[in-house]
């Protein structure tokens, strides 16, 4: 009897070795990294997070009606972005052809492209000229286009028009100093009691990376410079992070911000306890919902985020469509991406979901502006916006940024020390 488990363990071991040996020596020729032709026509899949509005299905139905032999099927992934990324990576590491068109978050492009998980897109066949230029950079890796920007997003400064008016401030602040001035004036009003001055996302999540990038870019600094080298031990980077550190230290930003995520911030703003709020545009509709959930209906407006000497540099969000390197029917996939990125589809999508388009002209479209009055402001923000670090090991880089900046904000380490530590960590992470 004692021999039996040993035998099965050995069998298991043999199984393990053969099973794992298989995926290590896969041939590399199939990976379409060299900008090869996108060929093959037939049914494909579109892999994306939850289609909450049902509008994606509607657009796909439109395509399917016109292309009965090249139908698209939507594969819905979990709601959590990280889970989506995990599943897409799993599909890629097994070289499965189950996923064709991938709906990627803007920060994943570098990692997916560098791992040869994406097919390069032909720039001459896709009309990127009509898109906002900043959005196109989010689909590029080392000068090559790997993903077509479909939706965009950027931070805006939400501010309370009623309070500013009472305090005699006629314009939203363009600089940090103006913002603090306005706060001081509002603080003196009876209505200003219990209203926090400013809030941006500083909880230890991806939101903190966005916040840090915005603060550093606004001072003219960079987290990772154009050549791909980290540059956070510069005076500009320190000035940016110090703005956040001092905001908390001086009580401009509530200390509780360290525990709040984006939704926590929205609750705070909608409860009427916040004067200035850096937030994504999705809050606009929700804070204007007249069902009792918001106390600031009609009492706020948006402006570009402020910086040290003028408007700041907001950060880019959004989603891009890419083609899996291991997929079949890539020609169909390219046509489908063209269809989805088309101005007409983008407009319909924006009107249905409130996701911002990437086509520049749509920001001046009267019908769009009527539904989303913040669009001209958002256009200005996106034109001036920067992307988060374009690095292959993005997961490690964002965790390192969050760690160091959070320690500085919480008063654990002085800003200078935190930035030196971060520089060392990032140097290690970005050296090939």
């Amino acid at each position, binding site marked *: 009897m004692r021999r039996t*488990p040993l035998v099965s363990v050995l069998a298991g071991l043999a*199984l393990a070795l053969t099973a794992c040996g298989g995926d290590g020596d896969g041939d590399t020729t199939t990976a379409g990294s060299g900008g090869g032709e996108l060929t093959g026509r037939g049914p494909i899949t579109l892999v994306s997070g939850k289609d909450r509005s049902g509008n994606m299905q509607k657009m796909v139905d439109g395509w399917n009606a016109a292309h009965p032999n090249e139908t698209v099927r939507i594969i819905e992934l979990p709601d959590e972005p990280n889970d989506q990324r*995990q599943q897409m990576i799993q599909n890629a590491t097994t070289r499965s052809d189950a996923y064709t068109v991938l709906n990627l978050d803007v920060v994943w492009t570098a990692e997916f492209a560098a791992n040869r998980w994406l097919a390069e897109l032909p720039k001459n066949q896709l009309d990127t000229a009509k898109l906002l230029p900043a959005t196109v950079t989010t689909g590029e890796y080392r000068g090559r286009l790997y993903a077509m920007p479909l939706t965009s997003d950027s931070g805006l400064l939400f501010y309370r028009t009623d309070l500013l008016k009472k305090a005699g401030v006629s314009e939203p602040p363009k600089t940090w100093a103006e913002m603090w001035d306005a706060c001081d004036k509002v603080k003196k009003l009876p209505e200003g009691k219990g209203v926090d001055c400013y809030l941006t996302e500083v909880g230890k999540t991806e939101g903190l990376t966005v916040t840090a990038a915005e603060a550093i870019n606004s001072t003219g600094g960079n987290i990772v410079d154009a050549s791909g080298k980290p540059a956070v031990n510069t005076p500009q980077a320190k000035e940016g992070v110090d703005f956040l550190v001092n905001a908390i230290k001086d009580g401009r930003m509530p200390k509780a911000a360290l525990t709040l995520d984006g939704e926590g911030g929205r609750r705070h703003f909608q409860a009427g306890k916040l004067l200035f709020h850096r937030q994504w545009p999705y809050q606009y509709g929700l804070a204007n919902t007249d069902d009792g959930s918001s106390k600031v209906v009609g009492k706020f407006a948006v402006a570009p985020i402020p910086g040290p000497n003028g408007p700041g540099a907001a950060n880019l969000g959004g989603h891009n469509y890419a083609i899996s390197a291991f997929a079949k029917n890539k020609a169909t996939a390219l046509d489908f991406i063209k269809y989805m990125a088309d101005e007409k589809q983008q407009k319909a999508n924006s009107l249905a979901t409130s996701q911002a388009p990437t086509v520049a002209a749509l920001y001046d479209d009267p019908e769009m502006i009527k539904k989303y009055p913040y669009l001209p402001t958002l256009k200005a923000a996106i034109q001036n916006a920067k992307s988060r670090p374009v690095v292959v090991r993005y997961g490690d880089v964002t965790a390192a940024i969050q760690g160091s900046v959070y320690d500085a904000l919480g008063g654990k380490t002085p800003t200078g020390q935190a930035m030196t530590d971060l520089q060392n960590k990032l140097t290690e992470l970005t050296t090939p």
Partner: protein
Amino acid sequence: MATTVKNRPDAVPRPAAGARRGRRPKGDAQSSRRLAAVLLSPTLLVLALVVGYPVIAGFRESLYSRGQQLDADGFVVEGERFVGLDNYTAVFSGDRGDAFWNAFYNTTFFTVTTVALETVIGVVMALIMHQAFRGRAFVRASILVPWAIPTAISGLLWRWIFQHDGVANAVLRQQVLWTADGLESKIAVIIAEVWKTSPFIGLLVLAGLQMIPREVYEAARVDGAGPLQRFWRITLPLVKPTLLVAVLFRMLDALRMFDLPAVLIGVNKDSVETLTMLSWFEANNVRYGSAAAYATILFVYIAVIAYLFVRLLGADIIGQAKQTGKQRQTRKKAKA
């Protein structure tokens, strides 16, 4: 409960089997052994497949690395590389070494504090549930509620309680940032964990209590033992085997704690980062080799703790085997 299951089969069929064994020819014993092997083999096969294979495959993975280098065009160099123990040495060196020892400390700290608190509270719960009083069924059911709630959900519930404008701060009339990164978050995790898992110990200890015969207490009372004496001298020794098993289970569970701190406080927070979270982070960043190394180290750590626990405190987890061993020894002695 464990005691009865253990004693009965031993007490009755053993001598009979022993008696028969003497009469049977040798070949018979061999064939029955073979039959036992055949009958057990499906179980062993399944175990090898669902336990043995993953453990070995995980260990093998921990010796490899892939996709960590970029070529001149910015593409990841493909293919798996055998790196020997590099993944293990990397765990202990530099920044990652600090992170490892921090997580190691957190894991151990959470295990010691939560299990100690749970044991005390669980035993008290069991003593209360064991009393005969009106509404006993209701108390029993309500004590078990936390255990019935999935950990991720209880993590969410506690996050609401511990948020800056939540119930905890309202009750304390303080502005404590429980879910920021600090000692407060450790305390929050301990509170939520103890709340959730004390009923488990309570339930198991209750089962042990119900096995103690009433006569023992009556005899003690006749001899003039007070309630405290009865607890220390009778209840605790008699419930010890069950209690130790319950504590061992809780320890093994607490050592691989992940979901509660991850949901309640968040990932990548030094103050509550446990070893499983480090492994999760590595896997998340497509470094499966390194993730497997962390998992293997945790596996060894848990195995060592379990072994020491069984050895030092004599937790009767494999009680039957031990008892048969003893019986054989006594039989030998009797023969001599």
